[in-house]
C-alpha cells in the first residue's frame, strides 16, 4: 500500500516511515498549540500547513489530513 502523502510504501497502512514521523510530530505538537491558544484540530492543521517554518513532510501530512477531513465532511453531507 502506498503512503497517503507520497509514493513510498506505507509502513502502517497510512504513511511511509518519513511521513509517519511527521504525523507523530503533528499530533505531539497539537498539545503545545492548545496550551498556547484556543485552537481546534482543523484550525491547527490549516495554520501549520500555511506556516513557512513547517517542514516539508509535516506540511504534506497536514495538507493530506485537511483533504481527508474535507472528504469526510462531504460524505456526511
Amino acid at each position, binding site marked *: 500500500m502506498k503512503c497517503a502523502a507520497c509514493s513510498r510504501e506505507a509502513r502502517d497502512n497510512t504513511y511511509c516511515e*518519513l511521513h509517519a*514521523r*511527521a504525523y507523530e*510530530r*503533528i499530533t505531539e*505538537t497539537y498539545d*503545545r*498549540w492548545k*496550551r*498556547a*491558544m484556543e485552537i481546534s484540530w482543523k484550525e491547527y492543521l490549516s495554520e*501549520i500547513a500555511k*506556516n513557512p*517554518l*513547517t*517542514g*516539508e*513532510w*509535516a506540511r504534506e501530512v497536514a495538507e493530506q489530513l485537511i483533504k481527508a477531513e474535507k472528504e469526510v465532511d462531504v460524505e456526511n453531507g
Partner: protein
Amino acid sequence: MASVEKHTLIITEKPDAAQRIALALDLNQGAKRNQHDGVPYYTAKRDKEILVVPALGHLYTVAGESCGRDRYPVFDYKWVPRYVAERGADRIRTWLKVITELAKDADTFIDACDYDLEGSIIGYCILKYACGNKEKVSKRMKYSTLTKEELEKSYTELLPHLDFALIEAGQTRHEIDWLYGINLSRALTAVTKNSSGTYANLSTGRVQGPILKFLVERERSVRSFVPVPYWRIRAQIEICGRLFEAQYEKQVVESNSEARSILSACKEKNAQVKSIETRQFRQPQPVPFDLGTLQNEAYKLFGYTPRRTSSIAQRLYLDALISYPRTSSQKLPSTIDYKAVLRNLNKIQQYRSLAAELLAKPELKPHEGKKDDPAHPAIYPTGNPPERILDSAESNIWNLVVRRFLAVFSEPAIRQSMKIQIDIDGQSFHLNGMRTLEEGWLRFCRPYGGSEEILLPAIKEGQQISVKKVILEDRFTNPPPRYNPASLLRKMEKTEIGTKATRADIIQTLYDRKYIRDDRMIVTDLGLEILEVLRIHCPKVISVKLTRDLEERMDKISQKDEKREDVIASVVETLKPILEGIKENEKEIGERLTNAARKARLDERIIGPCLICRTGRLLTLYSRKTGKRFVGCSNYFKGVCKTSFPLPQKGAIIPLNRSCRQCGWPTIQIRTKGRRSWILCINSKCPSKRERRQRIEMRSMQQRST
C-alpha cells in the same frame, strides 16, 4: 643528468617544496632548476651535490590484486603506482621513471615530505618502490615551516630513520578506507546496474556513511518540524533622552492569554529601576589556530569552505608565509623563536606597531589551547613578507593567521556587563549592557573578532523611567539549523571521525555524489535513500561508534599498541557479512536505489514551476532536431502546455529555486569554467532583460556619438 660522483637525493611532496628546500640548502643560494621529461628537479651544492626531486602528492595507491571493476567482495590488494589504478594518471609513469633514474647515482636518501601521515606514506612508497628499497637506509627531514633557517636546521639535524610506526598507521588507514570504499561502493553501483541496466555513480565509505547519517538525522528533524507559537514582550523605555529596549524577564511566553495579560498590566504605566548589577570579567586571548579552528573562523568571517581554506593555507605554507597547516595542535612550543617571528613582522607596515608592542614585553608567553599534535605546532606566521602579490583570499587567511598569532601573546580583554532590572507595575524587565574597559587582545585581532558594545547611560536604583510603548511579538519556534560545511566539520571533529587532512574532502564527496546540495546542506532524495538502504541492510557501515573505534585502533598502530594485521583482519570480518547481505537483497536494494537515482537525475533537470499551466514543472530538455537545450513544461508531453524558453548552450545550469523579482519566473545560474557565473531569469520577455537591452543600446549610441 647522469653524474659520476654520488649525490644525495631528497624527496619532497610537492614541486614548490622541492624548490624551497634546494634554495635553502644551496650554499650559494643559487640552486639550479633542471627538467627531465617534463619532471622538474633541483640541484643544490653543499658538502656534496644534492638533488631535490618532488612527488606530485601520492604517486602510489592501493589497488585490487585481480582485475574486474564491478566484482565484489575484494579483499586482496597491493600498493601500485597510481597510473596502474587510475585513468588519466599517465604523467605519474614518467615521474616515477625520472625518480628511479635519479636514485641510481645517489648514496644518501632523505625523505623531506610533510611530517604527517600522508607525507610519510608518500616518501616511504617512493623510497621503497621507485628508489629500490631505500626506505630502511633513508634519513628524515622534519620541519614545520619552509623558511631557510628551519630547513637548514632540519638538514643538519636529520632524523636517523623514517617513522615506521606512523607509516604503518597511514598505510593501514589507506588500506581500510580502500576495503570499505571499493567494496561498498561497488556493491551499491552493481546492484543498481543489475536492476536498471544503467550506471549510477553511488558510493559510501568508512567515514562517508556516518557523516551522511548525521545529515539525514538533521534533515528528518527539519522536514518533520512543526513550529509552535510563542510570544516575546519588549518595553521601549526612555533614559536621558535616548530610547532603549528592555526584555521581559521570561524570554519566551508560551501562552497567548498570559502574554496579553502582561501587556495590559504594563500599558500606560511608568517604570522604576529596581536594581543594577555590574560584573567585571576577563575575556581571555584566543588560542593559536589548528586547522579545524582556522577553517571554522574562515567560514564564519569570509564564507570560505573548509576545503578552500585548507588549500589556501597549503599555498601559504609552500610560500613559506605560515607554518604547516594540517595540524591538530593549539600549542606554540618555546622551540619556535617567537621574537624572530615578531621581529620579521615588525618589518611589515601593517603589523609594525602591534609587533613592536609585543617585542617590548619582558616575556613572551603564548596563550595555548588544549589540543596537541606530536608532529607539528599550531599554525603560525613565519614572519616572512609575501614574495608575490597575494590574491584577496590568500591575503585574508594570511592576515587572520598573523593577527591570531599576535593576539595569543597579548593580554586578556577586561569587559564589564551591566544588568538593569526594571519594574513596570509588578512586571519585571531587563536591560543588558556590555562595554570594554581594557581592549587587550581585541586590538590585535581587528578587524576580526570584534566585540559587541551596548553602552547604557548612567542610571540609579529607584530612578523613574518613562515607558514609551510595550510591544508584543508573535513568534514561532524555528526548526533546527541545517549543517553547513563549517558546522559539519566541527561535528566530525567532536565525534572524532576522519582526519584533519581528509574531512573537508569527504564533505566535498557528498556534494559530488549529489547526496547533499546547497551551502546550508539539504539532503537529496538520493542521499535519504542511500542512507535508508545502509540503515536496513548494513547498519554497521553507518555506525559512528564503530568508525570511532576503528580510528582509535589505527591511532594505536602509530603508538605500536596495535598490530596492522589484526586491525585489517577485523575489518574484513566486519565487511564479509555486510556484503553477503547486500548480495542476498540485491533485487530490493537495486530497485530502491534505481528509483532514487532516476528521481535524482530528474530533479537535477527541474528548474521550477510553470506559471502558465500552474501544474507542470519546467525542465531542461533537448531538441531532437538540433540537439540544443531549452526549457519546457513537463505537461507538454500530455498535450496540456506548450510553454518553452531558450537557454544558453554553454555552461552548467544550476536552478536557484528563486523567482525573478520582476516577472516571477524561475531564475537559474549559469556556470562556465574559467568565467564568472551569472544569474538569469528564464523568461525571454522579462522586463529586466528589456531594461538591460536598452542600457546596452544607450551605451553603444553614446560610444558612437563620441
